[in-house]
């Protein structure tokens, strides 16, 4: 008993004398987690992309080569990258345009019990299963779905058909068109845009907006020169979510859309189905590079200065 307490005392003395040791001990588990599991798996992925595949048996050849990265620039693969980036950009811009007024209203005008109701309204879609949401959208957008029915009842089918006749964004029905994919992406990722925006808008002091008005700024000028710059960190944070989530998703474009591949699907197809892990890994590196570039650009634009 005595010996045990002596040992404990000496341990606590050591820790007290060397505070750095204590910090090291405390920080070691999360550091190991981050270093080995998180970064380790990432580097394993990067390493895979420098291998290549034996084309018949599908067995990977473990010799360093850049051949796999070269394959990314084949027109068909490069199309996939461009298609995904354009979609991610469109979804991000769409989410910002739709999300901003919603977040603004929630931050400024929702009072009392309306505030939690607003939060619930935005978050509720996140609680239901992702797959259920996507499948129900497939039904909503289908040729014989509710949206078509509404257009028909309003005698506006010609409008929808004219829209669907536009190449690239149109198609046989909304559920097999790029527009359909866009709408579902927009719906699914919108909360990730609204919530950070709302948080940043709440922190904008309303005295500033009033001061701007007092000094003769028109509402647009107040928005452009006062509100937007102050809320920009939230917009950027939201856009990082929507952009990166769209870049990586592989389920939505498989269920809704024209079957043209996105990066996530290419990764899934090459890794999961063709066994071409090197090419899948090379594809997976693309969003990492894109996001790094995006963050660098955002930083250069001063988006993080206000944080």
């Amino acid at each position, binding site marked *: 008993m005595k010996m045990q307490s002596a040992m404990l005392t000496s341990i606590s003395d050591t820790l007290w004398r060397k505070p750095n040791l204590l910090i090291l001990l405390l920080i070691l588990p999360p550091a190991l987690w981050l270093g080995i599991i998180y970064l380790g798996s990432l580097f394993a*992925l990067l390493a895979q992309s420098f291998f290549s595949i034996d*084309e018949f048996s599908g067995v990977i050849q473990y010799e360093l080569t850049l051949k796999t990265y070269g394959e990314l620039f084949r027109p068909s693969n490069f199309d996939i990258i461009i298609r995904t980036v354009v979609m991610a950009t469109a979804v991000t811009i769409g989410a910002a345009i739709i999300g901003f007024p919603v977040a603004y209203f929630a931050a400024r005008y929702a009072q009392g019990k309306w505030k939690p109701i607003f939060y619930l309204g935005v978050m509720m879609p996140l609680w239901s299963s992702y797959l259920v949401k996507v499948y129900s959208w497939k039904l909503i957008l289908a040729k014989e779905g509710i949206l078509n029915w509404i257009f028909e009842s309003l005698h506006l089918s010609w409008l929808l058909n004219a829209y669907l006749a536009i190449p690239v964004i149109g198609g046989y029905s909304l559920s097999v068109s790029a527009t359909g994919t866009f709408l579902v992406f927009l719906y699914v990722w919108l909360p990730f845009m609204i919530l950070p925006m709302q948080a940043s808008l709440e922190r904008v002091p309303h005295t500033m907006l009033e001061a701007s008005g007092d000094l003769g700024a028109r509402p647009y000028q107040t928005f452009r020169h006062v509100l937007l710059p102050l809320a920009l960190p939230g917009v950027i944070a939201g856009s990082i979510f929507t952009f990166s989530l769209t870049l990586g998703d592989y389920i939505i474009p498989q269920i809704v859309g024209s079957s043209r591949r996105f990066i996530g699907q290419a990764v899934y197809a090459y890794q999961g*189905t063709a066994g071409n892990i090197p090419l899948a890994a090379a594809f997976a590196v693309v969003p990492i590079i894109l996001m790094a570039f995006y963050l660098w650009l955002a930083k250069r634009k001063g988006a993080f200065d206000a944080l």
Partner: protein
Amino acid sequence: MFLLIVFVWIKKLRHLVVNTGLEAGPKHPQGGSLMKNILKSSVAILMGLSFAGQTMAQTMITEIGEGEGQVNIVAWPGYLERGETAEAFDWITSFEESTSCMVNVKTANTSDEMVALMNEGGFDLVTASGDASLRMVAGKRVQPINIDLIPSWSTVDDRLKNAPWHYVEDMHYGVPYMWGPNVLMYSTEVFPEAPTSWEVVFKAMDLPDGEPNQGRVQAYDGPIHIADAANYLMFHNPELGIISPYELNEDQYAAALDLLREQRKIVSRYWHDAFIQIDDFKNEGMAASGTWPFQVGLLQGDNTPVASTIPQEGATGWADSTMMHAEADNPNCSYMWMEHTLSSNLQSDLSVWFGANPAVLAACTDGRGMQTAEGCTANGLDDFDRIKFWTTPVSSCESQETCVPYYRWVSDYIAVIGGR
């Protein structure tokens, strides 16, 4: 989600270690590159002893021991039923009760998915089609089967016993499971009579209801669909000289791709998941598509106005075999299952359920399940010779000097779907 990613990558790492360990040895005496060694050692430290059980079992089993309590099977959707989708269709429960081997099923939607799952490991058996089986034999992912341990082997259809998609170098790598055609499904509201040609899904045209087929047809979302185009050209463009739709030289292959590019313009969605296709025939007003009899059966069961046919060009088809992983953890239960596939109600009831043909001819007639002789004829039992069975395209092919190999089919088909 994050945990899942980590998990997947640990699995990949494991795969990597196993592979480097095995492949690097005899082939590269120097011991491989630095990167390989770094990966190997770091992973070895990380993963410790957890993979100590990994051994390469290349030799055949000579006797069946006690069951291990479970068997893990990769299968096509609809292939392994335990009465959960429809109560009458159950061929797993009786097996589990009599052998105490619990059956764990992982479904895969394409042959490529099956090969990938088997490459990953952790499974005992796979119901592989001919376009997957030879790849797995070449990749040493499956082990030879000792047919002496399967008493019902003698009942297998003679046309399948030594079929080239599982019988390699005098060794059996699989037990025939089920075969059938890729039929043309059509909406009976659009077609009062069955279409006589695959043309309706390949070329832009007006269908009998007066509307164009653009947007109302689908095609299979797997590179093997190139063979369907080749099969069509075999009939309509004999000057191309195609002998087998799986053995195409550069010119024939280019012609098939051109046909598929034309098809891209009229296809609204490439079907990948059988149940999404079923939904599309219900809610998207689809008129025609190549499909498996499985979807036709489910749609008809749901009173959707569809029917199926094998048009004049013949059809591609699949012939599946149960194959056993080279490192199967549960070999005894696996052998018991293979015997079960041939001797139980499986062959008969599955052929009704999937609209396919049993590998055991007696299953059509001996009343072990629901199938009848008429049912087998309706499923195309007598059309064996009209069906070109899925096989993996390889560069050294029998019918001509060199053929376009499968890896190009994969990337080119992705390009065609992307509109290139």
